[in-house]
């Protein structure tokens, strides 16, 4: 279980997180929604230690995320970045097998390549993609490679940062379905941040709405449409009228 307790984070005068409290139960898929610039990515990166909160605590299975063996902690996570964040200088298979080629999870090179090709196949890519470089791939293929990299070491917890941004609706649907299938298949805990409502409906078990630096609403995805929360209702309907200012 991932738990945020009164997490605050500011960048200069801008207060991004102002007391976030949230629980993500083990094995569940939590989707955090909210407008651009509301701190969704900051919350996610705070768990991984990429950003340090100013105050508050984040625990994973009851242990403080900032303490203990960093390598062992990070080995439990996989992450799909918004733009893929593939390493330009490495061929696709080495991107996918990056964690398996070095560090505590190191495997023989041939075995790592076989695992990479299997994971590529899992996300719908053929083995001939393995030796291409990221710059030779389309945006959708890069997302799939990023997804393959995120699951390569079979992590317990997977984070997805805006998984469908920049993709056409059909490719978005494919990525959403893949994410859902993989999370269910692996029994992983998933945390996704997005403002794409089709992703929310496809991926989420539970939804949390982040606005003004706090979680405004959280609950099962099935209750989202009838929540009665004015922030969530406005966000889902995409209306300019409501408590969320249209110009931010």
């Amino acid at each position, binding site marked *: 279980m991932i738990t945020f307790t009164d997490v605050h984070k500011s960048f200069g005068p801008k207060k991004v997180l102002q007391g976030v409290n949230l629980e993500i139960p083990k094995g569940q898929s939590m989707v955090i929604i909210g407008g651009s610039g509301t701190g969704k990515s900051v919350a996610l*990166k705070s768990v991984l230690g*990429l950003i340090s909160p100013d105050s508050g605590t984040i625990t994973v299975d009851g242990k403080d995320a900032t303490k203990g063996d960093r390598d062992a902690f990070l080995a439990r*996570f996989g992450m799909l970045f918004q*733009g893929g*964040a593939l*390493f330009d200088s490495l061929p696709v298979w080495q991107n996918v097998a990056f*964690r398996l080629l*070095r*560090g505590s999870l190191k495997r023989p090179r041939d075995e790592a390549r076989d695992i990479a090709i299997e994971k590529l196949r899992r996300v719908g890519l053929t083995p001939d993609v393995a030796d291409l470089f990221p710059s030779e791939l389309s945006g959708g293929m890069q997302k799939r490679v990023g997804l393959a990299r995120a699951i390569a070491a079979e992590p317990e917890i997977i984070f997805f940062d805006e998984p469908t941004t920049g993709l056409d609706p059909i490719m978005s649907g494919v990525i959403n379905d893949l994410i859902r299938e993989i999370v269910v298949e692996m029994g992983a805990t998933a945390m996704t941040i997005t403002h794409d409502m089709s992703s929310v409906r496809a991926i989420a078990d539970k939804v949390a709405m982040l606005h003004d630096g706090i979680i405004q609403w959280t609950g099962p995805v099935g209750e989202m449409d009838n929540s009665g929360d004015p922030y969530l209702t406005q966000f889902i309907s995409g209306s300019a009228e409501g408590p969320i200012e249209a110009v931010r």
Partner: protein
Amino acid sequence: MMVLTAPLAALGRATLAFLATIGQVTIFALSALTHIFRPPFYAREFANALLNIGWLSLPVVGLTAIFTGGALALQIYDGGSRFSAEAVVPQIVAIGMVRELGPVLVGLMVAARVTSSIAAEIATMKVTEQIDALTTLSTHPMKYLTAPRLLAALIVVPVLVGIGDIIGIYGGFLVSTQQLGFNPATYVRNTVDFLQQSDIISSLIKGAVFGGIAATMGCYYGMNSGRGAQGVGRATKASVQAAAVLILAANFLLTSLFFST
């Protein structure tokens, strides 16, 4: 009153920012140095850095050195040394290239070619979240990106300086023997007789220091780049400026250390 104090306040802010940058660069450089000696080691990254910083810099270093050596020979010959030109030209070309021009020009060429490339590459990795991705994949960016490049520069730039010294002296030799009519054997003998071991050692030490500066500045500004294409551009520009100025300042300090009597 505000009108009078505003320039002072701006000067104070600039001074504080400058001092803070010096502190940050120093901490970064020390951290990078310690990562060279602590595992894990990334041999493939180190080999790539050796290739990029050393082998691929050879053409620009060679061309810079040969033209500089040739021009130096012409300047010395033209500058009033005709009375004993055959002795003076090779001696001054040799000492000028080995003590000063070789290390400084190689350092500046490396700053232009390598520092800019390291800064742009790492800054692009930062803005495209590749550095965050490295961290999430349990790989320390300082170990994976900075340490191999710094170690490669510390090793290979002195080699480049040595090669630059030799090519520069050869440039002077070519001009002197082909254009000015000097005797080749005499030119070589005068060069070898005049150069001392300490000249060569100082040249190579300067190379190592300048290589370290070039790689550190590239990595530092890359890692601390701002967002977007503008951030990458600014990081690249700042890295080359800082590397060039620091190389020239370090050259002065090292020359004072080695040769002031």
